């Protein structure tokens, strides 16, 4: 009568990514100290750390879910919400700040209708707050994914953003 689990138990989304997750779990679950690489690979797979994936990791690693969640919320590199296809990082460092980066950030927020740290409804863009990206010579500067855009003015923003589908 109690074979298997109850009706309300784990039902994984029907998604090929979870097959790949199972392979990763097989690779990492026996290794000591492998939780962070495991979470990194999971995030690479899904773009963030979905709750069902964290539950799978907790089962395979035989640790409480709270432990996984504690690690995932400690490090800034992990995300618990889905993110956009394109991540926009407008530099807020000192050099950029004195050259008007707040106006650049305001314009991006206005164009996309979201705040820093948020993702657009169509998952096209995420704005990520960032302190300094180390390209002060190009101030004010921003990065979209791996591309750097420097010497920005607010007027340039809409054209740049449109390049990222």
């Amino acid at each position, binding site marked *: *009568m*109690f*074979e298997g*689990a*109850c009706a*309300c*138990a*784990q039902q994984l989304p029907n998604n090929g990514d979870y097959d790949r997750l199972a392979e990763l779990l097989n690779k990492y679950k026996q290794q000591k100290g492998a939780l962070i690489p495991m979470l990194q690979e999971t995030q690479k797979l899904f773009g963030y750390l979905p*709750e069902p994936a964290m*539950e799978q990791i*907790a*089962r395979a690693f035989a*640790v*409480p*879910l*709270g*432990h996984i*969640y*504690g690690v995932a*919320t*400690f490090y800034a590199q992990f995300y*618990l919400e889905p993110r956009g296809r394109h991540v926009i990082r407008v530099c807020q460092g000192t050099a950029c700040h004195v050259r008007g980066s707040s106006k650049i950030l305001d314009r991006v927020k206005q164009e996309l209708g979201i705040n820093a740290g948020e993702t657009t409804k169509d998952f096209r863009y995420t704005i990520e707050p960032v302190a300094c990206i180390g390209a002060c010579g190009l101030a004010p500067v921003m990065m979209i994914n791996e591309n750097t855009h420097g010497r920005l003015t607010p007027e340039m923003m809409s054209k740049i953003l449109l390049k990222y589908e």
Partner: protein
Amino acid sequence: MDMITVKIDGKDIQVPADATVLTAAQMAGIDIPTLCYYPGLRPEGACRVCAVEVEGVKSLVASCVYPVTPGAVIHTNTPRVRNARRTIVELMLANHPNSCLTCERNNNCELQQIAFKVGVRKVSFSGERREWLKDETSPSVVRDPEKCILCGRCVKVCNDIQSAGILNYNNRGFDTLVAPVLNRGLGSTSCVACGQCSVVCPVGAITEKNDVDEVWRALSDPKLHVVVQTAPAVRVAIGEEFGLTSSVETGKLVAGLRRLGFDRVFDTDFTADLTIIEEAHELLHRIQNGGTLPMITSCSPGWIKFLEHNYPALLPHLSTCKSPQQMFGALAKSYYADKMGLKPEEIYVVSIMPCTAKKYEAKRPEMSRDGIVDVDAVLTTRELGRMFEEAGIDFAKLPDEEFDEPMGISTGAAVIFGASGGVMEAALRTAVEVITGKELHDIEFAQVRGLEGIKEATLDVAGQKVKVAVANGLANARKLMDLLAAGQADYHFIEIMSCPGGCIGGGGQPLPVDMEVRLARMKAIYQADRDLPLRKSHENPAVKELYKTFLGKPLGHKSHELLHTSYTCRPLFKEC
């Protein structure tokens, strides 16, 4: 253990080589303030309140984790140390609500005591404060994260001692929060409601859900006939709430409850005896008819919930007997109601329990009939202490009084339910006599007594080997269940209690609790057993009468309807 010499505050002292500076200082009679340190939990050095100076070491060290070395010169009372301690506590207070006067832990708060002790008379810092909502989703435990000082004791008890893994550190820095996953309400997680977090919390950040006012309301309702039952472990601990040492205070407890205005003062021990008779017969039935073995006890509601979430495939091993609390409620509203000529809905059942999970158990949907709950309100030992205070009852000066009949009559076998191993011992006292048909003279089973995490015994009963195991604390229960799931546990009967030491160390018991207190309560429990004329459940005359006039026979139709229950499979990480 090798002894080494260290110098503390100018005095040479011999201490074990593996001592910490804190334990060495305690041996020297020096009281170093601590907050995150808790005896029996892994020390972490998180709060730094126990800072001391060690010569040759540049910065102050946390004495709770710093090991002694031969010849070490330690100073626990220098201006630098005193300043550091004061600053640390001031910083904590700068981000702590100043709601002491209305806090559940007013007068019993370690932060209050330490702030006083280290001489904080003003808080020199002010700044942003954390804002978190109170979590009142659990019927057993309330979390108030704004009061949390992040000492981590609850995290350790929840993970290391109970292996429940519900509470953990979330986020980082100023946003750090001790909470369940996604800051969910405890009531929607797989929290087992054991309340051990509320026992170790130094402040009012985790407390039992306070149901005192509900009981006052019932007591002042003239339409209600209010009866109270009290669990075995309450009588050996309630005195602690009033500064007495742990000892058997049954008489005063009964007198106090009567003064509060209860119409009848009954004893959960009456239904503990009944539980033993039903459970012993269930065990024999399983052994004789090839039922699921080992059979596991079902008195501890935290344990039930733990098994439902973590090992649903093992649920058929659980005895179907309701716990004594719930058997009492069911009988109060049937057997006793009939006797008194009352309708079930006119009776209000209050239980006094050493336990927070009992609050949850009383609210389980299986624990009611025709929409009438078996037990209406559950108070912990601590809450009862508060009711006595509110009522102006001077506990120490109360006379000794007797329980009311018939549901106040019990045996020594019922009292020992309060200590780990007690249910097992009580069941053996009855089962052995039922199997052999002969009187059992040697009724004390020392192998299953004591504070050890897992206890085992093999008994020879009428030529048959009976193998039993006893576990207390859920991390120990988990070890046994892993063996059972792997087919490596060939026991007949297993007793599990959620809390360390059993109910005497329950989540609703007076604070503070350590090994010594648990041992003292345990000693008192076995004293109460020896003090009683009858010590075997099946000799209880009131229970015999109950079977004769109402229930019929053990495991009979009426028993099945009133005294037995079923369990639910629950998902691993949340509530259904």
